Every structure is written in structure tokens, then in C-alpha cells.
């Protein structure tokens, strides 16, 4: 470990978590700093468990976690972490009979924003940030799925948290909303630590300077998106016909086949790998399908 102790915001050391016979996390270790980190992994890889531990909702069976130097296992320090946290769980229900503004106001209180005027400003700010101002007085049950997801993001942004833990925040968003979400994260003040899990590799390529790949409860990659793409370097090629030696092939819009595999044929037309290609090679190497 060569990390400077003074610059690391979050440190996870040998964290394991089991659910019965299932090992969700297996001695995970990583550090996070300010900026956006994408968390990639297939379903059941342990992403949600890791995020819930960082959000102080779950506790590890083994290992240590430090968030801004605070120990989430200590009651008082856990509260201090929560004061600096914004969390969007993967499956968030809503108080559907609340209006959008009332819901955000209620969450703001739970986040200890007790001054009424400040709370109103904060609610207005996050509503503007996610483009839901017009729906402030609408009941949540009247919102579409995408709007609810934006509301979930809005509640996480309340109080300008230092740590944003977002579990699949772009699920249910249409293409324009996804782009606006990228803009939103890019514009956040105070440069918080953002950890977001997603299945959208292009989101990660677009906005995350850092990416972690979690496979079967273990960190298989941590680095930049270009580094992850590079993991597939020389293993992506295109051809007029399908090549059955490839791990995965698909025909592009131009009618040519794009192949990802260990052994491109001699003289194959290699193409620049993407984050998706790198992720695919990692998961194939780990035996994950």
C-alpha cells in the first residue's frame, strides 16, 4: 500500500460478509478518495453489500472500514459518518402519499437540517438540480418510475454530503436523464467522494475517473476506465463473419462483427477496446457468466 494516509477518504481492509452459506464479500480491500468511482460487477457480485457497509447500514463480519477516519462500528462515530453521507439504496420505496417537496423536507430533517429556512432552500436546490421543481407539490404515487429515481437521487444530495453512495442511480432513467445525471455529478460542490454502482459501462467511461470491478465478492480491478479497457487490449477485433473462437461476438450497425476473445486470429483487424470489453475479459477470466 502506497496510499498517503492523509488523502484517503475511505479505507476498506479485508472486509468479508456472508449471508448464510453465501459469501457476498470476500476480504475486500480498497481505498477511495474524493471524486467519482464507478463500481462494476454482475448481479450477486456483492456490490450492494459493499455499498450498504459503506453507508453504515450493514456491518461486515470481518475486516475494518474507515470513513473519513471514523469507525462505523462505533455508535457515535457512525452517527458522524451518517451526517456526511448521502445514500441511494438499490431498491428504494417511497412514502407515496407524501408530496415530492414534503418527502424531501422530511428526509432533510432526518439528515439533521433543522433550520426551516435552510431546509426549504436545500429542498429547492436539489429539486432544481434534478429538474423536479414543477413536481414539488405532486404526490410521489403520481410520479413515473424515472421521476422517482430522480427523487431518490435528490434525497441523497440533500445537505451536500461528503460521501455519496449511489446504488444503480441510473436505473430507470431515460437517455437524456442519464446525461443530465452525469452533468449533475460533475457539478457537485465540495468535490465529494462518490461511489456509484452501475451496469452501464458507458456511464463509468463518461464520468468516473476511477473504476472498481467486483466479481464474486472480490475486487478484481481498481483503476481508471482506460486501464480497465486496456485489460482487453489486443483482444478485440472486427471481421465480416462470426468467429466462434471469441468469448462474445455481435454484429454492429455497420454489418461487421465485433469479437472479444483471448486469441484473435492472425492478421485480425484489431479495434480499440472499451470499458465494456475490459470488464468482459475480466469476468471471463474469473469464470463469471
Amino acid at each position, binding site marked *: *500500500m*502506497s*496510499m*498517503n494516509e*492523509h*488523502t*484517503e*477518504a*475511505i*479505507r*476498506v*481492509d*479485508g472486509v468479508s460478509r456472508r449471508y448464510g452459506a453465501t459469501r457476498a464479500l470476500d*476480504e*475486500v*480491500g*480498497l*481505498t477511495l*478518495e*474524493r*471524486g467519482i*468511482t464507478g463500481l462494476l460487477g454482475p448481479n450477486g457480485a456483492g456490490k450492494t453489500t459493499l455499498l*450498504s457497509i459503506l*453507508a*453504515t447500514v450493514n456491518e461486515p463480519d470481518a475486516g475494518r472500514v*474507515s470513513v*473519513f*477516519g*471514523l469507525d462505523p462500528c*462505533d455508535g*457515535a462515530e457512525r*452517527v*458522524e459518518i*451518517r451526517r*456526511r*453521507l448521502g*445514500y*441511494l*439504496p438499490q*431498491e*428504494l*420505496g*417511497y*412514502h*407515496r402519499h407524501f408530496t415530492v417537496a414534503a418527502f424531501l423536507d*422530511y*428526509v432533510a*430533517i*432526518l*439528515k*439533521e437540517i*433543522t433550520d*426551516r429556512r435552510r431546509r426549504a432552500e436545500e429542498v429547492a436546490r436539489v429539486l432544481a438540480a434534478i429538474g423536479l421543481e414543477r413536481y414539488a407539490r405532486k404526490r410521489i404515487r403520481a410520479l413515473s418510475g424515472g421521476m422517482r429515481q430522480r427523487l431518490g437521487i435528490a434525497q441523497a444530495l440533500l445537505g451536500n454530503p*461528503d460521501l455519496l453512495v449511489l446504488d444503480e442511480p441510473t436505473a430507470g432513467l431515460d437517455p437524456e436523464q442519464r446525461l443530465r445525471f452525469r452533468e449533475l455529478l460533475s457539478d457537485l460542490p465540495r*468535490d465529494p467522494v462518490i461511489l456509484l454502482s452501475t451496469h452501464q459501462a458507458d456511464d463509468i467511461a463518461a464520468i468516473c475517473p*476511477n473504476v472498481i470491478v467486483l466479481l464474486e465478492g472480490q*475486487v478484481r480491478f*481498481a*483503476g481508471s476506465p482506460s*486501464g480497465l479497457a486496456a485489460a482487453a487490449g489486443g483482444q478485440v477485433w472486427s471481421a465480416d463473419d462470426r468467429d466462434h473462437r471469441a468469448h462474445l461476438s455481435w454484429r454492429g450497425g455497420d454489418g461487421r462483427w465485433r469479437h472479444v476473445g483471448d486469441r484473435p486470429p492472425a492478421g485480425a483487424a484489431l479495434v480499440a477496446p472499451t470499458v465494456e470489453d475490459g470488464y468482459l475479459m475480466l469476468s471471463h477470466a474469473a469464470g463469471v457468466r
Partner: protein
Amino acid sequence: MTATDGGLALGGAGAADPAGGAGGSRVTARSRALPLRMVLALAKAEAWLLVRSMLVLAGLVAGGLLIWLLLHPVQPLWWNAAWEIGAGQFAVAIAVLVAAQLAAGRADRDGMVDLYASFPATAGNRTIAHLTGLAGAVPASLLLLGAAAAVVDLRGAIGTPSSAVLAGGLLLVIAAGAAGIAIGRRFPHPMAGLIGALALFLSSTLFQGGSIWLLPWEIKHDDLSELPGPLAGYPPAGAHAAELASIAVLGGVVALLVTVNRGRARVGLATACILAVAVIGLAGAAQLRPIPTTELNHLMAEVADPASAQRCTTADQVRYCLYPGFGRDLPSLEAPVNGVLAHLPARPDQLLTIRQFVPIDFTQPALIDPTLTHGHPKRQIDQWYAQLQKAPFANAAASAIYLPVGQWPAAGAPLADAHFALALGAAEWAVHLPPTTSSRSGFQSCVAVDQAREAIAIWLAILATHPPAGQLQDGLHSPRSSHAIQATWVRNTLIPIWVYPRARYLASSGPPITAAGYMLAKGMTNLPEQKVARVLKGNWGRWVNWRTTDAQLAAALGIPTPSLRAVLRTLHPRGAGPTAPPPSNEQSPLCTT
């Protein structure tokens, strides 16, 4: 980026101080203290939600209706009304229980447990906020209390309201809310609140007798509405309030026990729980104590010898004897009586006494209200029973009309009914109809069959109070069916009876009235008043003699004797012949004095 032990590290240029310059291990004093401002802000939000709850609004409306139903039929007496207002809060309490349960279980039910767990507001703090937020139920409770108290006061309530008793209703609402939160914290499903409300409702209706003291929401305070004044310390409002407050505390403590995990806090809560249960037990025991013998002795003496307690006023040959505090009823009593006197050709020699009485059932010792005599030995109850046999009402006199305490209506149609009933009683006295007599086996009434004085009495009462004709006509029908009529056997003849709805307002002061008497009186009202008065005045002594028949009066007035054929057809439908008369000792006697 470099790997840490067993993992990887992310690095990057320009990373800011992760702890915001605060240093990693520091925990502010704020972290350890109860975040009071957050709790208060959350409590305010919860209170506001409760204020705007449709459930609570529905409870408020139901509570208003309940109080109206409980108080509308009886005279407003503060020593009874305050309890009934508290009982009306039962509807609000049920609504608040359900609303509080829904609020407390909201996060679990809406799938927001993980999100809530990430907030600095701990589950314990949120529970405290929910409990504090029960303040939102207070306006509804106070609104109901204030409105009901204002209505009771406007109706001319007798006595003064007890703030301890009225506060009990508010405490009941708070206690139910705390119970709802305790349920909601453990069982978030909406059915749990409904089951809790159902349990509360059933507990208030299933348990009777001595156990009413342990149930603060017990609404059977009927006996209070029949007492001539408050009984000191009955029911014990202080113990009642302490019990309700302790139930509220117990609900809150249980709710916190569900959500607080810290060892020391749990020990404190468990101690509070034990203390609350102890106070509930002590308060329950205090309420279960019998009413002091001296208090009951005093009450029995007032009932057996009302003259010792009542104040009497004599005007126009009529003596009104009322318990202290009921003097404001006097003008309302005088009006119908004076109306009869004004149309009377001649007054009887005897003074008419109109007297209040306490309608405690004294016909059998076992029927003495168990809520009054609860906990007293049988010997003592027998003694009171013997004492009550001396009550004037038990030995009815021709010159007395008895008014049950608490039954005189304040206004509206019931007051009109009561006025007619009292006028009829006075008219019966005026025409020398004998009173209902009582015996150990109950009341025995003679029937003035074919006696002109009966029709004269009805005519006088109609002239004095002008009741609606339709209502008078309704007296021919049985209250159970608009087609059947009531009848009684007199000397082996089935006599149709006319019943005006007076029983609620007067103890029986005269004999049952025959349908024939009413029909004749109805015919008399069709004649000019002066003509009837002239006929009656001409030979008053004859008309009030029991031997003078309806036919003689009709002939003197120049009207036909009313036909009872239609009435009798109802009594004996086609194909069904008259039934055999019962033995003579089961038949009503003929009035012959």
C-alpha cells in the same frame, strides 16, 4: 492507484482532505448528545401529519357524533357530561391509534429501512419524535372537548365541569397514540393498527361490572346522569387520569424498547416500564375501591327522603320540589302546568306536588346499580334497599307527579314532548284520575275505561301545549309497528290503549289512557274552545266523576261518540278472533275513584 492488503487503493491528484480538515478520529459532542433540534423538527413534522390526517378527522367527527348520542337524550349535568365527553374521545383515540401505528411503521412498510438506517437520526430518536409528535392529536382532542363543552354549556348544563375528568379524555387520546406507536414500531403492517383499535374497542364493550374501573375508556356512566349531584370522588378522576397517563408512558417506553439497543438505555426503559405498570395497577386499585359508605348513605338519604335535600316552591296551588342546582328547570316546568290551570273550570282541593326523584331501581336489592354499590357487603345493600322503600315515589299519591332526575330535556322536540307529558299529568290530577300505585311486585295501574274525565284531561293537555296532531295520532300505534296497537285487559275486555311518548320524562303519574279517550279528546279539539269550556264549567263535578261516560260527554258537546271500529280491526285482524282473557289477577283494574 495501488493495491492495499487484499485489495486495491485509488489515488488521484488533488484529493482534498477527506475529513474536511477535521481529522479522522474526532467525534463532536453533538454526536453523543440527543439531537434535540432534529427530534423536535421531526416531531413537528409528524404532528403536522397527524393534524392533517383524514383518519383523525374521521375520528373527530365520530367522536362528536358519539358525544351527541350520549348526551342528546339526557339533561346536561356536568357530573355526567364531563365523563361522556371523555368517552366520546374514545373515537378520536381509536383513530389516533391507527394513524400513529401507520406513521411509526411507515419506513418499514414503504421499503425504506435501508435509507432510514443511513440517516443520523437513529431509530430511537425517531421513536421519540413520533411520541412527541402525538401533540398533533391534541388539537383534535381539544377541539372536540371544547365544542362538546360549549354545546353542553349552551344547553344549560347543571353543575360545574371537572377539569380532571375532561383531561382524562385528552390523556386517553395520547395513551392510544403511544400504544399505536408501540405497535407500529414492532408490527408495521396496517392490519396491526386495526387489530389494536379493534382490541381497544372490544375491551371497552366486553368488560362489565367491577372491571370497568380498570378500563379507562369504559363508557357506562349511565348512573351518573340519574344522580342529583356529583358524588365526591366518584368516579375517581385523579386515579383515572394517572392510569391513562401511565398507559401513555408505558406505550412510549415499549415503543422505545423496540428501537433502542444500548444496554444502559434499555435498563432505564425497563425500569420506567415497571414503574408505569405499578402506577397503572395502583390507579386501577384506587378506582376499584368502593364508593365510601358515608357518600352512599348520603345519597340514599336524599333518595329516600328527598324533602331533606330538595328545595320547594309553591305557586298557584302547585308545589315544585327540585334538588339544588335544578332550579333553572322551574320555568320550563311551570309553563305546561300553568297552561292546564289556565283552562281548568275548577281546581281540586288538593295541592299538586311536582317532585324530582332519583330513578334508582329499588324494586329488588339485586337490581341496585352495581357500579354504585360495588364492593359493599350484601347486608349494607339490603339496608339501603329497605331505606329506599320509604321513598315517596314508592308510595305514589294522587297529588304528586314525579320527574326522574336528569331526564328533563333542554330544548327542541324532546322538550315539547316533556311539556305535553307534564301537562297531561297535571290534567289527570285536575280531573281526579288516580295515580299509578306501586307494590313490591311492581307498578299497578287502573284504566279509566269509558270515563269522560280521561278525554277532558287529554283535551286540557292539548290546549296547554299544542302538540303536533300527527304525533298525537301516533300514540294509537305500538312503537314496534305502525299497524299494531297496544291493548290491556280490563274486566275480560281487551281495551285499546293510546300511548304518548312520555315515559322518558315522567315517572308514571296516571293510568294508561284508552284509545277511546284519545279519540273523544281529538273530537273535542275540533270544537271551539269556548263551547267545550262552557259545557265543562256548567257541571264540572259531574264530568270528573268516574261514572260519567264518553257518550254522555259527547252528547253534551253535540258530537258523535268516536268509533273505535278501525282501531279494533287492527286489534283483531280478519280471521283472528279475540284471544281468551287472562285470569282476573293479571288484568288491569278499572279506575273507580
